């Protein structure tokens, strides 16, 4: 099969992918949208219960470590940036650079997990657990589920860092790389919403 024609338009420095290009396998997007919908239910559930007890939620929110929240947002956005550029490098067949960027993105993800562990640990030491009140139940539950996504995403990005150097960058390989990268970016954008809902105290 000749993938040359399909790749040709993207084989130049700084080229955009062709128009009408699905970033990854279309089937993966069914899963990604499903995940986004599930998190939407989380977001709405939180917001509805918050509306029933705004004072409790605001007061509880003040106990969250906003420095950790901002740091984690910075780490998530940085890792997404690395992964996006890693995909671009793969398109240009600069596989060594691509692998390095995937590994850097992975490192940012690891730092995110470490910060989260410190954050949860700090809370637990203060006696703040999921059973403390409704706000903290949602906090632990939704950030915990997100953290599991981060761990899975790290495995995906880790695999991509070696997969990108395993053979010729043909259309199929590029599609697989884009699928994995898209999952990581969805994990990033879900964190952006969680950060806004839980951490930003007004």
């Amino acid at each position, binding site marked *: 099969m000749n993938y040359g024609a399909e790749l040709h338009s993207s084989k130049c420095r700084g080229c955009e992918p062709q128009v009408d290009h699905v*970033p990854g396998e279309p089937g993966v997007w069914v899963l990604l*949208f499903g995940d986004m919908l599930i998190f*939407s239910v989380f*977001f709405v559930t939180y917001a509805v219960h918050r509306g029933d007890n705004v004072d409790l939620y605001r007061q509880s929110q003040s106990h969250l470590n906003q420095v950790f929240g901002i740091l984690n947002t910075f780490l998530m956005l940085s890792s997404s940036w690395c992964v996006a550029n890693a995909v671009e490098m793969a398109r240009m067949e600069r596989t060594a650079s691509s692998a390095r960027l995937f590994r850097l993105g992975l490192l940012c993800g690891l730092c995110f997990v470490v910060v989260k562990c410190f954050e949860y640990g700090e809370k637990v030491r203060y006696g703040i657990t999921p059973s403390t009140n409704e706000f903290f139940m949602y906090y632990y539950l939704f950030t915990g589920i997100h953290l599991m996504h981060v761990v899975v995403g790290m495995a995906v990005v880790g695999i991509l860092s070696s997969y990108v150097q395993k053979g010729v960058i043909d259309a199929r390989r590029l599609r697989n790389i884009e699928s994995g990268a898209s999952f990581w970016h969805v994990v990033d*954008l879900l964190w952006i919403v969680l950060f806004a809902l839980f951490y930003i*105290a007004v």
Partner: protein
Amino acid sequence: MAATILSWETGHASSTGRHYAEIAVLIVAFVKVRIVLMEFIEVRSAPVILKVLAQAWAIGVCAVLIAIYGRPWW
């Protein structure tokens, strides 16, 4: 990054001011979400159906959250 810093709000004296600040935080968050969708995921060069679904999700969830946050004012 600028959007993250922009949404770093300090407390407002009035409850109305607080409410508007909360809405601003949500809007900034979903502006960031849209940037991730368009620039990182490259939805802007995706087929129309994917572009529409992705943006509809962002706009829809943002609108629903703003509506729910505004409930005490209904």
